[in-house]
Structure formats: C-alpha cells, structure tokens
C-alpha cells in the first residue's frame, strides 16, 4: 500500500466532521440526518483505524527507512511563510505516531459506536458527533503533525473540543463552568508549550521534527552528548533544559499533573463517552505523547527528566489518595486517570518513554472500559452517579459487571492482565532510575499501586456487591414490546432492568479482551520474543545513553519484582473486599456524618487544598488586582485620562489649526513653497557637509 494513503488517517475524520457540521443545512429530515450521522461519524473513524492498521502492518514489515514524511504542502511553497519562518504541512509516519493513531482511532472508534447507543435519545445527537469527529481529527493532527506548530494546532484543537464536549449540556451552568475551568487551566499549560515552541524556533531555527534534509529538531538532537541547531552550532544544555521544562509545563496542563490537575475531575460534567474518550483514553495522554516525541531533547537534560519523574510520582500518589474518598463513580475514575498519568510521567522521567507509551495504550483500554462500564451503570441508573445510591448491581447488570471486573483488575495490576505488565515495566524502570533515587520512586509507585487496587475494588464493592440502595424506579426499565425510544423511566415498576443496547455492549467486550490480553501481547513474554511494542517504538524514542545517562542496576530480579507487585495489588484488592464485605448494608466504611467530620477525608476531598489555594490566589487575589489595580489605577486614571486628554488636546490644536485653512489657494501655495525651500536648503546643507 502506498504510504500516501496514510494521509486518509488524518482527513477521514475531518470529512466526517464536515458532514456532521453541515448536514443540517441540506438534510431537512431529522430522522434521516440522525441515521446518516449514525453511519458516517463512527464509520470514518473506524475506516481511519483500518487504514492506520494496514499502514502499521506494512510499515512494520518493511525494512526500509522507518520514519516517513508525507508532505501536505510542498517544501518550496510552505504552509506558513513569514519572513524566514517556514512551516510545512507534513505528516510524520513513524512508530510513535502510528501507535497513537491506532489507539486514537481504535479506542475512539469503539467509543463512537458506544455513543450511538448512549446518546441515542439526545436532542443534539449530530452536534455531539460533530464535536467527536473534530476531536478525533485534532488528536490525529497532534500525533501525526511533523512539526511543533501542527502539534500545537492539534493540541489547541483538542482543547477546544474538550471545552465544547465538557459543556455539551451547556444549559446546566455547572457544566459550562466546568468547561471554562478546563479551558482556562489548559491555557496556563499552553502558554508554557508555546513559549517552548518559540524557544525552539529561536535556538534551533526550525520547528519540524523531521525534514527531508535531516535538519529537523529531533534529527539535530540525535547526537551523543550534544544538540545542534540548523546552522551547525551547539545548543547549550541549559537552553535544552529550559525548552524541556517549558514543554513539560504544556504537558502538565494537558495531562492534568500537579499543579494543574484541578480541571480533570470537574471535566466529568460532560457525557460519559466524552470522559472515556477525552479524559481517559486520548487527550490527556497528549502530554505523554509530546514528551515521548521530544525524548530526543529530554534525554539531553537530566534536570528536566528528574522534574518530570518526581512530578509524575507526586501526582500519582496524591491523586490516588484523593480517589480514596470520592463518592461520585466518575470522579473516582477521574482521579485514577490522573494517578495513572502520573505513572506515565514517572516512566518518561526515568527515561523509559516506550513503557510510558505502553502504559498509555493499556490505560486507554482499561480506562475506556471502566468509563464505558460506568457509563452503562449510569445509563441504567438514569443518570445517577453517586455510588452511595448504588449497590447490588451485579445481579441487574451482569455483563457490565463482567467487563468492569476485568478492567478493575487490570488497572489494579492483577497478575497477567494488561495493567500488570505495563505498570510493572514502569516500576522496574523507576527502580533503576539514572539519578540514583530509584528506591524512592519504586516505593512511591508501589504504595500508589496498593492504593489503586484498594480504591478500584472499593468502587466495585460500592457499586456491584453491597446491598441495593435504590428503588426500581430509579432504574432504566424496559417495557416489552416498546422500542428503546419510548423514553426514560416510563411505565415504572413493571419492566426489568435493561442492561444496555448492543451498540453499547459490544465495544465493551472488545475493550475487555484488549484490557486483559494486550499487556501480554506487547509485554516481555509476548509473541515474537517479547517486548513487541518496545522494539516497534525504538526508532521514535531516544535511548538514555544519547544524553550520557545510564540506568542503575536492578533493585531485584524481574521475577521478584513481579511477585512483589502482584502481592501489593492483591493486598489492595483483598483489603477493600474485606473492609466493604463487613459493611454490606451501608456500603461505606465510615458513616456519612463521620466521614464529613474526619479532617483527613475532608482534606482529601478538597484535593489537598488545591482548589482552595487557587481560589484564594487567582480568583480572590486576581479579582482584587483587577478591581483595585487595573480598573482604577490603569483603566480609569491612566487610559481613560489619556484618552480624554488626547481628545481635548486634539480639539485645542485643531481649533488653532483651523485658522490656517483660509481657502485661498495662494496661501496654500506659500506653505508649499516653505516646504520646498526648506527641502532645498536641507539638501544643500547636506551636500555641503560632504
């Protein structure tokens, strides 16, 4: 297959977006529009996935150059030309972008299919898919773009889509606020990212990753111990560190790391498929993708890597603790996402970028599965998200329970499931951190893994095992003989719990298989000698040795590591089972009143005080600054006063100048002569001075 077909990976979702966004103009029949949307919107994404798969298979089996550029614009007539600044619209086809394309289109396609069922009754069905397709396009642009600028376009594009989808049900003010929050917090990170891009432009002279002349940023950085710019000079390490840290700020914003994680829990306001697609499987991993893409830069800066690793660990741990006390089923998952992203950052921080991507992939599977499962639960519970009002759903939703338990065990690191392999790879790498702090990172990772296992099983127990804390009226019932369109909660009490339509369940099954088996497939004991993903990704990922860094010796043997992490995971799962098994009626370890009174619980529920801190600094402090300083000091007393002064002085001057306009041609001619004489005298003086 011609590699040019790879272009379609990017453009098909855009076609879908164009169709969805304009179909309302020429399709007046709403039912037809909906049917077409149902076919086209998931169809383009799945087609994109198929093409990506074909490209990957062909790409992986071809021995020739493994990184390919597909120009969207010619080299001589670039996409953007501004002075000496030239950017082409090229796509880079390399292992990293292919893996991410597969994840985005694969998981995204499954979630599209799921959404067909989930959003079936929504008024804005087509609008939802418009945003979804646009999101897929932007995410693909982010991973496929051959330069920082295209990546930035995609980066901002997914931000926009995220904003649009979080506040999809914008009539509820809380949703709109959540969207705003996500957008604004992301801006902080984007500022860092854009500063990083500018720094790259000014120090490297290019923003492309790869170029046909092998003068791209990554190629320039692909030298042992030094980084060149396009003219052949050496870029100092301090500059690399600065650039890496600026890029990392962008990654922190997009991937919800400390201190910019506060938007992600609130982003759960959107429809559940949105949470699954954007805030679990794809968009939030953009930071990890970006770090991996820039691995050639990062390995040259031990400082930046160190920062990444510790921020990742801190995030993983803190988010895990916060997840312990959440009562909203989606918020538990949101904090777990943050926590898992922390793992990925830790992997990047110790230089093991390919295992970071490995975890991105496995996490995409099981976290999508978890969200979709939670969505199925919420769907069945008529939109109820509070776990305190659930319980005993295992009998009502057995299929959902089955896929959820696979996903839970996978994320908890239950042996031989996907999460086990990827998480263990990260812990192994962390223990061998080049900086010598491997023991600490390993210990922190293990504690977090234990907490993860605990809170995930807590979720399962609260939702599925403990006694029912709801009435049948709160369930999505189904009356025989009626179609699904007959509406929510109709004919209460006479029907039975309808789990979910097929379009919602089949994606779950597929994801469940992947969540269970992919880790083995790509892990060290997989086919073809193991470590398939590592080997495939190798050309896109810089080895640590490039920057002169070297991992330390193993802390323990691999088998001992596997045993230890298995033990920790099982311990967490068992502890939760034991604690909640004793409280089958209430489904809570502490009574609500006691929980509210506990300072620790309050501290964790309040995100370790981050929200309050931001509230104090930015909302209150910023408000004061705006009101006192800017409005009075700058706006009223300076700008307005200057404006008034200019107006008054212009009026006064023109009052004086008005007398000059006599209307007599001769006067004007005289003034012209004055100018001419002045000019001639000036020229004469100028000539005389020579």
């Amino acid at each position, binding site marked *: 297959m011609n590699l040019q077909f790879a272009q379609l990976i990017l453009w098909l979702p855009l076609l879908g977006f164009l169709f969805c966004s304009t179909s309302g103009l020429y399709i007046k029949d709403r039912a037809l529009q909906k049917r077409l949307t149902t076919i086209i919107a998931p169809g383009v994404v799945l087609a994109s996935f198929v093409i990506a798969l074909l490209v990957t298979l062909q790409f992986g089996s071809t021995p020739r150059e493994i990184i390919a550029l597909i120009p969207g614009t010619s080299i001589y007539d670039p996409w953007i030309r501004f002075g000496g600044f030239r950017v082409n619209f090229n796509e880079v086809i390399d292992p990293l972008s292919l893996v991410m394309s597969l994840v985005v289109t694969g998981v995204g396609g499954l979630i599209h299919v799921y959404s067909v069922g989930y959003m079936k009754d929504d008024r804005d069905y087509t609008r939802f898919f418009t945003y979804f397709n646009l999101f897929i396009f932007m995410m693909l642009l982010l991973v496929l773009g051959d330069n920082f600028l295209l990546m930035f376009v995609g980066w901002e594009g997914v931000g926009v889509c995220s904003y649009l989808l979080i506040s999809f049900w914008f009539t509820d003010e809380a949703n709109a606020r959540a969207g705003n929050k996500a957008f604004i917090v992301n801006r902080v990170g984007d500022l860092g990212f854009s500063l990083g891009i500018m720094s790259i432009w000014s120090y490297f002279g290019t923003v492309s990753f790869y170029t046909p002349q092998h003068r791209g940023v990554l190629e320039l950085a692909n030298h042992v111990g030094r980084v060149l710019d396009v003219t052949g000079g050496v870029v100092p390490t301090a500059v690399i560190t600065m650039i890496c840290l600026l890029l990392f700020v962008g990654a922190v914003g997009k991937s919800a790391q400390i201190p910019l994680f506060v938007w992600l829990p609130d982003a759960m306001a959107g429809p559940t498929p949105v949470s699954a697609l954007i805030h679990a499987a794809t968009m939030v991993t953009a930071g990890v993708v970006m770090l991996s893409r820039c691995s050639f830069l990062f390995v040259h800066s031990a400082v930046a890597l160190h920062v990444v690793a510790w921020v990742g660990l801190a995030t993983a741990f803190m988010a895990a603790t916060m997840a312990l006390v959440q009562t909203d089923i989606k918020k538990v998952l949101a904090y777990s996402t943050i926590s898992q992203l922390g793992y990925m950052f830790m992997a990047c921080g110790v230089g093991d970028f390919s295992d970071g991507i490995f975890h991105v992939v496995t996490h995409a599977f099981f976290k999508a599965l978890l969200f979709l499962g939670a969505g199925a639960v919420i769907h069945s519970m008529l939109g109820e998200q509070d776990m305190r009002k659930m319980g005993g759903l295992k009998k009502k939703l057995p299929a959902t329970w089955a896929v959820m338990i696979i996903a839970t065990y996978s994320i908890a690191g239950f042996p031989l499931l996907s999460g086990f392999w990827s998480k263990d790879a990260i812990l192994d790498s962390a223990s061998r951190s080049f900086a010598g702090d491997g023991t600490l990172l390993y210990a922190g990772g293990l504690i977090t893994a234990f907490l993860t296992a605990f809170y995930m099983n807590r979720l399962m127990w609260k939702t599925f095992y403990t006694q029912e804390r709801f009435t049948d009226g709160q369930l999505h019932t189904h009356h025989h003989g009626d179609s699904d369109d007959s509406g929510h909660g109709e004919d209460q009490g006479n029907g039975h719990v309808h789990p979910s339509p097929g379009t919602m369940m089949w994606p779950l099954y597929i994801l469940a298989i992947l969540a269970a088996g992919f880790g083995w497939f790509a892990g060290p004991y997989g086919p073809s000698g193991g470590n398939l993903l590592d080997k495939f990704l190798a050309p896109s990922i810089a080895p640590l040795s490039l920057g002169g860094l070297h991992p330390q010796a193993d802390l323990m043997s691999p088998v001992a590591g596997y045993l230890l992490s298995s033990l920790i995971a099982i311990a967490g799962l068992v502890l939760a089972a034991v604690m909640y098994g004793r409280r089958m009626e209430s489904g809570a370890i502490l009574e609500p009143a006691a929980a509210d009174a506990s300072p620790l619980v309050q501290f964790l529920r309040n995100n370790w005080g981050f929200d309050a801190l931001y509230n104090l600094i930015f909302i209150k402090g910023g408000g004061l600054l705006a009101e006192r300083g800017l409005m009075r000091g700058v706006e009223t007393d300076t700008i307005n006063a200057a404006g008034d002064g200019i107006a008054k002085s212009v009026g006064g001057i023109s009052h004086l100048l008005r007398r000059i306009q006599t209307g*007599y041609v*001769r*006067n004007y001619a*005289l003034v012209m*002569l*004055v100018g*001419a*004489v002045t000019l*001639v*005298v000036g020229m*004469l003086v100028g*000539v005389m001075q020579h």
Partner: protein
Amino acid sequence: MPALILFWILAIVCIGAALTMVTAANPVRSALSLVVCFLALAVYYVTLSAQFIGAVQVVVYAGAVMVLFLFVIMLLNLGAPVTSSTKGSNQNTAAVALGAILLLVLFISGIFFEIPGKAVSPATAQAQGTVKAVGLTLYNPHLPWLFPFEATSLLLLVAVVGAIVMTRRQV
C-alpha cells in the same frame, strides 16, 4: 566672446520680460512679456544647438499656448483686478522673502558646485540637437523614449477631450 555677449543680452531680455510679466497688472501685457521671454529662451535653445527644441518652443509656446492665453483673456475680457488686495499683504512679503532665499540657494548650488562629469566638445554637441538626431533618439526602440512619447499622445487626446467637455455650454 560673441556667445557670451549674446548670452547677456538675451539674459537681460529674458529676465526683464519675466519681471514685466509678474509686475504687470494687465494680463495682456503679462502674456506678451511672457511671449518675449519664451522667444528669448528659444534663441537660447538654438545657441545651445537644440534647434528642434527651439523651433518647437516657438511653435508650441509662443504660437499656440500663449495665443490661447491671449484668446481666453480677451474672451473673458479680463482687465486688471478692480479691488486692491486687502488680504495677504503678509503673503506678498513672505513670498518675496521666500523667493529670495530660494534664489540664493539655487544660485549657490548652480554656481559654486562643480558639476560632475565632463563637457563634450561643441562639435559633438552640435550634432545632437538636429531634427534628425532628436527623431532618431525619440523613435529608437532600444531607448526608453518611444513608449512615453506614444503615451504623451494619449495625454494630449485626453486633454483635448477634457477641455471640450468642460467648456461646453450644454452638458
């Protein structure tokens, strides 16, 4: 030496005519002084061996332009302005003062600055003002004058049409 004497005589005629033109109240007298000045300039051109320009100067300026002026003056029956100028006495003073400065500056730049380059011999110069030489230069497709010259004909046509349209009584 005879050339110099001729120059001075013509200069006196020229400047005198120009001054008369400016100072005369009667526009007819002004116009006639200007004709004299133009004729003197034409003689200058001939002495500068620009015979063609000299002839054209007489035909166009003295023969056509100034006749047109006189024609309009007589058509409108314009005498000297009736009212004395009440406004702009400052204007006149300023104009004369500025004119003096301008003259000074032009003099300085005309006389005291050596003109770069070297004068060519009179024989060479002589051959360049003939009708033939001017025509060959003007119509030489390798020199940049042909197209402007053609464009000038268009300009003249436009001017003719414009003048006719403007002065028509019924529009």
